[in-house]
């Protein structure tokens, strides 16, 4: 009976489905996504009511909104990347292992046995999916509210070229991917911090603090040598995706940087978690 059962081939993705269901079944997750969707709505309503700022003031793309509602997406992303997205990543990544430890479910997952490496991989994958969903929500909510309140038409890119609505969708998706990619490093840092404690709120706070610290280091001229290594260094680099032709160099640099952070903090998380005594 059970001896036969253990001979069956492994189902490596069964847990990922369960993990995503766990994340997206929580009211907390939907509350965070709803809060992120409010950001473009707030921006669009504010611009509509006040008639828009004089050109050149406020966050990037703000002035373009009155001409084309689709720019609400881009403005909202600019506003969200330094603070709101790191906050939500902090919650999801910080909770990943520490939350299970706090509930006591970690010992039952490990006794199932889930495999410690596999659990970490699935947790990181769910962080990536959440990041993608969060970025997507901002861009989609932005496009929807923009289209509702402002005229929509061909989008004029930073390079002066004009693209149609179809190509706008492609660029919007690229921005979602860029935003997801940009926060992978922070996600790995959060996952590592989450293996250190059984108090999820502590891991969440520490991850958000890490996001703030990286941006401060990145802003201090005295620490210029460190700037290229901060995971936040390319957070605002997506302007290059709004040129014709697309300049991919920023995307590549960012991917390499994030990969580095994921490798280093992923390895730290593996080293810590695979040897840890689970006493919670």
């Amino acid at each position, binding site marked *: 009976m059970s001896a036969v059962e253990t001979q069956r081939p492994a189902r490596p993705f069964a847990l990922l489905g369960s993990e995503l269901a766990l994340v997206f079944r929580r009211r907390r997750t939907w509350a965070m996504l709803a809060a992120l969707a409010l950001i473009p709505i707030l921006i669009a309503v504010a611009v509509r009511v006040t008639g828009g700022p004089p050109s050149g003031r406020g966050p990037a793309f703000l002035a373009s909104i009155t001409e084309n509602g689709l720019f609400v997406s881009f403005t909202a992303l600019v506003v969200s990347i330094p603070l709101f997205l790191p906050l939500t990543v902090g919650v999801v990544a910080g909770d990943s292992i520490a939350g299970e430890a706090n509930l006591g*479910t970690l010992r039952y997952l*490990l006794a199932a046995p*889930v495999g410690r490496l596999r659990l970490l991989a699935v947790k990181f994958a769910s962080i990536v999916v959440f990041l993608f969903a969060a970025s997507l929500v901002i861009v989609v909510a932005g496009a929807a509210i923009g289209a509702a309140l402002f005229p929509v038409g061909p989008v004029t890119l930073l390079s002066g070229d004009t693209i149609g609505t179809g190509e706008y969708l492609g660029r919007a998706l690229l921005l979602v991917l860029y935003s997801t990619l940009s926060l992978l490093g922070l996600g790995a840092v959060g996952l590592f911090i989450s293996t250190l404690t059984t108090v999820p709120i502590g891991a969440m706070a520490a991850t958000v603090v890490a996001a703030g610290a990286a941006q401060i280091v990145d802003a201090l001229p005295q620490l210029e040598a460190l700037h290229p290594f901060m995971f936040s260094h390319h957070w605002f680099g997506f302007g290059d995706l709004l040129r014709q032709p697309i300049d991919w160099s920023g995307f590549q640099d960012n991917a390499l940087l994030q990969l580095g952070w994921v490798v280093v903090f992923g390895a730290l998380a593996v080293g810590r978690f695979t040897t840890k005594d689970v006493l919670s």
Partner: protein
Amino acid sequence: MTDRAIETVGLVKTFGQQRAVDDLALDVPRGAVFGFLGPNGSGKTTTIRMLLGLASPSAGEIRLLGETMPGRIGAVLPRVGALVEGPAAYPFLSGRNSLHRLDAADPRSDPKTRRQRVDRALERVGLQAAAKKRSGAYSLGMKQRLGLAAALVRPRDLLILDEPTNGLDPQGTREVRNLIRALAADGTTVFVSSHLLSEIEQVCTHAGIMSAGRLVAQGTLDQLRQLGTRRITVQTPDASEAAAVFARLGLDPVDRGDHLEGELRDGLQVEDVAAALVGDGVRLRGLSASGQTLEDLFVALTGEGFDVRG
């Protein structure tokens, strides 16, 4: 295939200076219901954590169902159901969904039979009526039942249950005992830790007693009972005649004024003494034996003190 469900050799776990588990040699035969006894803080849960690969031993070896732990963890643990240090569930999920989630954790468990297996386990612990309720709203006893259900979602060769009757009402406690008996009758080895000795005594075939991180005794219940000093006490108006019978049987009589005490040795049974007393015409007001229960042995081996070891 070995005939041992659990075997440890020289198992040690140290936390800083303290040896929480010290040179443990557990020996649990297959098919046994093994009671793992000991006062709070004697190292029971730490031992269970090491058996399940949650904590790594500081020294020593563990074999579960004949396989080395933690080296063969992926092959062994699917055959082992566990309840460790209280149940745990996702408070925002229903009881049923919590079980689905925990079952999905093992890549070898079959998703096609999952619904059926989960529902069967819920039924077995009497939780089917509350299966759709958020587990965060469960009472302590319901959570405990859910934890037991999680251990039963797949057919198991070995169950490791840490304080399974914690928080249960008397009916629930009885059901758990019956459940353990039924599982044992199906050939499952059950390793159950408890400090409620009377419960253990009712269902166990074997027991091990921990004290201060060391295993001070283990064996079948009969073997363990032999270890203790058994005393017999009689109340009688014919004290001198009774003392003569005691002396003849080698009981070293001690006259306590209103009663007479003696120590039972060499397999001498209470009923033999009673027959001899009655045979000699000694009139009895009362006759009792002590040292027969595990509790007496437990106290003799682990001490009377109430304070937890530091």
